[in-house]
């Protein structure tokens, strides 16, 4: 912001501006103007503040303009991963995207994430996404009797899979993946991130079961290193790197 713009704003007041949201909508029951299941764009002009996020703008629409607008959100602070959506053609969390970073002079395009069936407006059916996650068996697998106290590991061993523990299952990566768009059979980046978290955990003994699943036709070899997932991840996880590490483990037989 320039010094003059700041000077014209009284202290303590956040500058406000008008912003246009162009939202991709779909109502499975239809509305008076649109048929059941028809997809269409609708524009809303609202007053917003420089501190507002896309989620605040969506709230403003839902609470003050059109109560039928449907979207998911829970924590509103980038923790739960419910509000991944396509904002200006990029997957982001609405609660972590500031309007002022998006060039509010132009309409802001908001669409549901791609590759999953739309249920209503910005809400998609996440079940295929979760099904892939379940397939890689995202739980600790061990043999022998459980120790009386915690299973210990060194800081270095913990560091090995630290990046992939940050995943919040928002599906931004999977629904940004061009292979996932065309071939719904692909596990998608998130399932590989979820598997990576256990494969490289020194306490887990199910690595080879998971690697065997990812060695499949629908597994890691479908990845074409497009890097869309890494760019999309709101947690900054190096998704493509994690996928490459899984490929390397499969190629070398070493973890």
């Amino acid at each position, binding site marked *: 912001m320039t010094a003059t713009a700041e000077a014209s704003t009284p202290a303590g007041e956040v500058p406000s501006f008008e912003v246009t949201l162009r939202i991709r909508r779909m109502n499975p029951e239809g509305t008076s103007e649109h048929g059941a299941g028809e997809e269409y764009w609708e524009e809303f002009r609202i007053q917003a503040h420089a501190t507002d996020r896309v989620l605040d703008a969506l709230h403003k629409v839902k609470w003050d303009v059109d109560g039928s607008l449907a979207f998911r959100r829970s924590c509103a602070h980038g923790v739960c991963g419910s509000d991944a959506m396509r904002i200006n053609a990029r997957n982001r969390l609405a609660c972590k995207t500031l309007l002022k970073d998006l060039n509010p002079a132009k309409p802001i395009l908001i669409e549901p994430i791609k590759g999953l069936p739309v249920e209503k407006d910005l809400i998609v059916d996440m079940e295929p996404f979760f099904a892939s996650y379940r397939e890689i068996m995202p739980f600790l697998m061990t043999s022998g009797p459980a120790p009386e106290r915690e299973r210990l590991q060194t800081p270095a061993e913990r560091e090995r899979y630290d990046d992939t523990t940050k995943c919040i299952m928002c599906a931004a990566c999977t629904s940004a993946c061009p292979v996932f768009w065309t071939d719904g*059979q692909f596990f998608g980046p998130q399932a590989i991130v979820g598997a990576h978290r256990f494969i490289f955990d020194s306490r887990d003994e199910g690595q080879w079961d998971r690697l065997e699943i990812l*060695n499949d*036709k629908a597994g890691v070899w479908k990845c074409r290193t497009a890097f869309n997932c890494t760019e999309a991840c709101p947690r900054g996880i190096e998704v493509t790197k994690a996928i490459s590490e899984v*490929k390397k483990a499969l190629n070398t037989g070493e973890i």
Partner: protein
Amino acid sequence: MMTAPQLSAPHERIRTGRMRHNAERWSWMFMRISGAILMLLIFTHLIVNLVLGEGVSQIDFAFVAGKWAAWYWQVADFLMLVLALIHGGNGMRLLINDYAHRTTTRKVLHSVLGVAVVAVIVLGSLVIWTFDPCPVDADPSLLPGFCASVAG
């Protein structure tokens, strides 16, 4: 209360084709290795044909015949032919897997692709290995220099 979803057995979801052990892994490996070799072969080919000597204008029947008179150019071109077709064919196979969702469509496309790849490899190999640099009735001015000694 909602019950937790059942964990399905691995592999249940894969409906497409048989599971061949490590097949996709080898396909992936092949693409990297053949890709690297192809880069080498193609750039050698381009430099020898288009840059060295008189450049593009040097390419005529005699030039090609001269090259194929040497066994190492035959081997290099044969390798380039086979690797390029399998590399490209495998890439197409992956694209078909991505976009053709119906089993029959996929099978038909895969067969067409397979036939095309094999046909081009066979035809190309025939040209490379049965090539006659000095056809009998040809105009001698078009033939490579060493044909004179063969004919004479």
